[in-house]
């Protein structure tokens, strides 16, 4: 690995830490927020917004931009925090999350620069992504379309309706990421409605499948940057993650799904984040 690459990875890690801190801060508003599923997705969001996506915060409507859809719309705080870190939105305005009159709702709102489509009702992202991807193909555009799904979300039938459709249309400019943190609101996905063997399921639907440690930012970045992995097929990256990653006293706990941190908990979470970013020693 070159020094340049190491520096680049360090930079991504620094952004990821900043995003995590902002997520913790936003989730400490009086209404609370979806913490766990935002934190598990941070490496995916960071890799996309700081390396993979062709986007420009100064021109959020650039017709040549790549598209990212947060199908797991309840991770909006993760997306908002990333958009703030990337310069799409004003961090000061995001700090008003949860206050009356704020634009930042608990599920993404399209009026916010960088938010392509509103999501929140699960299972909508894949069909939307097909529409964007098909439009790009018909226009001869190089655009790639990324869509992030929760693993619990895969219990929605519309995901598989779209999965079948995308493969049938040969949309290799469509890349899905599954935030495979293993937990949904009340417990383990495998206890509630099993998803495994998840990779085989996607393969059987005609997708190219890869699995990575979703908290390893280099692995996530490399996989997403290299997509499509098979010509003529949509790609799905199964990112094995930890719900609540980065905040040890909530990580891996279904209760991290929605939290309302007290000031003391917020301070404790921030200290923990500074001590160690997940999966790798952080020195920022």
């Amino acid at each position, binding site marked *: 690995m070159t020094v340049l690459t190491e520096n680049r990875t360090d930079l991504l890690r620094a952004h990821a830490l900043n995003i995590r801190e902002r997520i913790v801060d936003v989730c400490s508003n009086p209404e609370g927020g979806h913490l766990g599923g935002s934190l598990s997705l941070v490496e995916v969001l960071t890799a996309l917004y700081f390396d993979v996506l062709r986007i420009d915060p100064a021109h959020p409507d650039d017709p040549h931009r790549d598209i990212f859809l947060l199908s797991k719309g309840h991770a909006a705080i993760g997306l908002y925090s990333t958009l703030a870190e990337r310069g799409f939105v004003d961090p000061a305005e995001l700090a008003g999350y949860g206050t009356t009159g704020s634009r930042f709702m608990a599920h993404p709102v399209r009026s916010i620069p960088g938010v392509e*489509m509103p999501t*929140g009702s699960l299972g*909508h992202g*894949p*069909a939307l992504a*097909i529409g964007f991807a098909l439009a790009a193909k*018909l226009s001869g555009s190089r655009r790639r379309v990324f869509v992030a799904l929760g693993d619990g979300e895969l219990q929605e039938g519309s995901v598989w309706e779209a999965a079948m*459709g995308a493969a*049938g249309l040969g949309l290799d400019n469509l890349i899905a990421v599954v935030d495979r943190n293993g937990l949904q609101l009340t417990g383990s996905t495998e206890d509630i409605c099993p998803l495994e063997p998840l990779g085989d399921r996607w393969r059987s639907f005609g997708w190219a499948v890869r699995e990575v440690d979703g908290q390893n930012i280099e692995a996530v970045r490399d996989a997403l940057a290299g997509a499509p992995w098979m010509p003529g097929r949509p790609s799905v990256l199964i990112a094995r993650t930890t719900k609540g990653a980065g905040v040890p006293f909530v990580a891996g706990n279904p209760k991290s799904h929605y939290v309302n941190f007290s000031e003391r908990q917020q301070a404790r979470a921030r200290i923990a984040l500074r001590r160690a970013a997940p999966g790798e020693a952080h020195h920022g």
Partner: protein
Amino acid sequence: MADTLPARQAYRNRLAGLLPEHDRLICLDTDTGLFTGVDFGTAAARYVNIGIAEHNLMGMAAGLAASGWTPFVNTMAAFATSRAVEAIKIDIAYNAMPVRIMATHGGLSAGHLGPTHQCLEDLAVMRALPNMTVVVPADAAATEALVDAAIELPGPLYARLGRKATPALPAGVEPPVIGTAQRLRAGGEVLLVATGPYPVLAALDAATALAGQGIEAGVLNMHTIKPFDEAGLIDAAAGTRLVVTVEEHWRSGGLGAAVTETLSEHAPVRIARIGMPDTFAGHVGSQEDLLDHYGITADAVVQTVLRHTSTGKRTQP
């Protein structure tokens, strides 16, 4: 009055001509069979049969529309309205995407296919959604006019189309303009407000019959359910003592409700609503048989008017 093409075929033929002329139009199909054998010419790549997948249809259409395309999407009214309504609400209506939802088999036109394929709730559901335009063309010529208008219309459109040929409106009726109610007959003490092929014809026939009994009834073709032409309705209802609504829709939530909401707020008058009773069709029948059975006919309109006007008492606001 001669039968014309079924509305869905009139639409199909018009779209086949428009697609090559407008390079941002795309036709998404859910294996309806409506387009079998259609030659889109140079636009063939812009006809996509995605399979039997109505949620996917609506979501894809929203993604395409967000990319600058105008999708015409095709399914039956029942599947658009009740199966895919969440995708229509969130992906299309919330974002005000210019998607054209071309919903065939509207009302009782699925006939013998039964209540799974009949659709008597679509006007209620679709008109509840912000940003949505809702139209019910009354014959093939009106369908073609609405398809043409749909090319440039901002925001989403829901068009209820029938399955089989229905009689043409009388010669000389102008093509409908979206959002403007159509006065088909001037009237006196009674106004008949109708939407869709058979209800509009029933209203026209009833008005003729009533004239023979000395009652002048005006007829308003409310081909656009949303945006609802409140001013046109209030104007047409001025001076009447009875308004009768006629629709091929459950009596809840559709045209009758929209008329009642408008007039009760702005120009109170006695209203009677003719439509499908609060039931699912319980036996086999053609569209005409079912309309007859459930009392959505010219005769039912006449009887309703006579019943409400026989006392001669003007209902005071």
